């Protein structure tokens, strides 16, 4: 038998949060809660497992394909396990002019993997502008934002990722 999707504490949080979300929308528009609902699931499980997608579809009175259509359109949703830490490095123009290409190379060397690849621990990828243009270069680690990055700062951040 496969493990249940949620622990009972997780199930409770999921139920409460989805119920709260549904109050934000017209009663005949439950599926409008799709993005926040997927975020609830991903926050609980670290990704969007298929059994969870079924549950979201049920609660939002829509179909599983609709859930996947949305989940695969947005890069922050993970329909595969992403690794413990998702590291998004901005390499757009404003960051590139402040050393972002060097930052990415440094990250690739430090982590021993190229951008776009995932291991158990890291999913390293290039991302698009993160609105740190005046405080470049920047990256996000599991959505936590770090800016004005230097080698020293990067070393300190990575040390804490155990």
């Amino acid at each position, binding site marked *: 038998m496969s493990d249940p999707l949620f622990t009972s504490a997780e199930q409770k949080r999921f139920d409460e949060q989805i119920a709260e979300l549904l109050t934000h929308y017209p009663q005949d528009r439950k599926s409008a809660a799709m993005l926040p609902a997927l975020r609830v699931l991903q926050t609980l499980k670290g990704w969007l497992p298929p059994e969870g997608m079924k549950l979201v579809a049920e609660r939002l009175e829509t179909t599983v394909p609709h859930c996947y259509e949305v989940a695969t*359109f947005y890069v922050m949703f993970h329909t595969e396990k992403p690794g413990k830490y998702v590291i998004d490095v901005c390499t*757009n*123009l404003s960051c590139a*002019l402040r050393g972002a290409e060097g930052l990415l190379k440094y990250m690739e060397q430090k982590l021993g993997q190229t951008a776009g690849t995932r291991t158990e621990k890291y999913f390293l990828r290039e991302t698009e502008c993160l609105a740190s243009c005046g405080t470049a270069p920047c990256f996000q680690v599991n959505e936590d934002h770090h800016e004005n990055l230097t080698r020293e700062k990067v070393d300190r951040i990575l040390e804490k990722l155990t």
Partner: protein
Amino acid sequence: MSVLTEKVMTRDWGKPDQPTLAGYKQRGGYQQLRRVLDTLQPSQITDEVKKSNLRGRGGAGFPTGLKWSFVPSLEKNTRPRYLAINADESEPGTAKDRFILEFDPHLLLEGIAIACYALGAHTCYVYARGEFKHPSAVLDRAIAEAYADGIFGKKLMGKDFELNVYQVRGAGAYICGEETALLESLEGKKGWPRLKPPFPAVVGLFGCPTVVNNVETIAALPRIFEKGADWFAKLGAAKSGGTRLVTLSGSVNRPGTYEVAMDTSLRELIYDKAYGQGLPEGRSVKAVIPGGSSAPVLTADEIDVKLEFDAFKPLQSMAGSGGIIVMDDQTCVVRSLWRVARFYAEESCGQCTPCREGQPWMTRIIRKIEEGRGEAADLDTLMNVAQAIAPWPPIGLGNTICALGDAGALPVQSFVQKFRKDFEEHITRQGCPYGERPWGAFGEFQ
């Protein structure tokens, strides 16, 4: 010189308690909402906004009051109406709205309440980009405080007018900053833009009349009612009221987000000691993107332009979202354009063929030229593809449902037109003249 003497939008930034309701109220917060509710009819609010010359800060610079007036009257259309706040700040080079959310979230919320009352909207959704974890957390706290204090909820500050405000976080799609894609996303769908007309003011969220406004635009409302529409209009220049938040980035000594007067010039912004403080010794400006990466690039002799919305028209460029990116004389413009083109290729939603196919095609050609594999015919092909997506000039002739097509074509067209020699040099040399150092004065990772 036109250096701003009095801060308007940023005057309380950085004060530690400003993001809290107590701090905001201590500095006069929510008094404008109180006064508006007590003394003005909704139509009078819209008239004041029109008089103030407030224009959309999200990119298009459209007059805000006029946009509001497109919402049909309740007699003509009895459906609920909505306000959607565009906090999906994603245009490369742009970092201003996030600071309003982080430093002064109640300023936005007070503006939202004023706007909703004017529009007869009882629900507002703030759509923030998914990457704004911290700014969104600050805003969520502020929303909760406003409910707890009886500002939002069944009775807006005691007035018989229900107002609910919800924040929705996106999940990493630039296209959702396009207003109809934003509405699709709010409806729980992938962000595919809608054909216009009908415009959102008539058929928007859930098929109802909807106004979509940028964060900075709505945050200006409490200031307009504090000091008057005439004051706000006069503070600006020509037909652009108020001040502007701009983000200065790239090869300048002091990059950052600044509040500037509308008649400040790009040159002043780059060189003045209050702002960018110039370029390092021995470097000069080569190119400037003036309004987020989609805005056609300017050359060093075009930077005396004022930052006011209409001033960019004669240059066939735009003030856009206020993202100003400076490239110095030792920056490779081909590689710069490649970074920009790659973005639009990545972010094209895939709905329209010219954009879906054209943006990656342009990106491949630019990369080929940058890597020294360019051929003489490539530049013509590049320009032909761009022209097929959106002929330029002028701006706005795109062959796609939304402006993302134009947004990706404009940088290509303007870079190739204004810096053709650089592209040709790459092709004749079969390589980048800047070798391993293409990014100018600050391009090395420290």
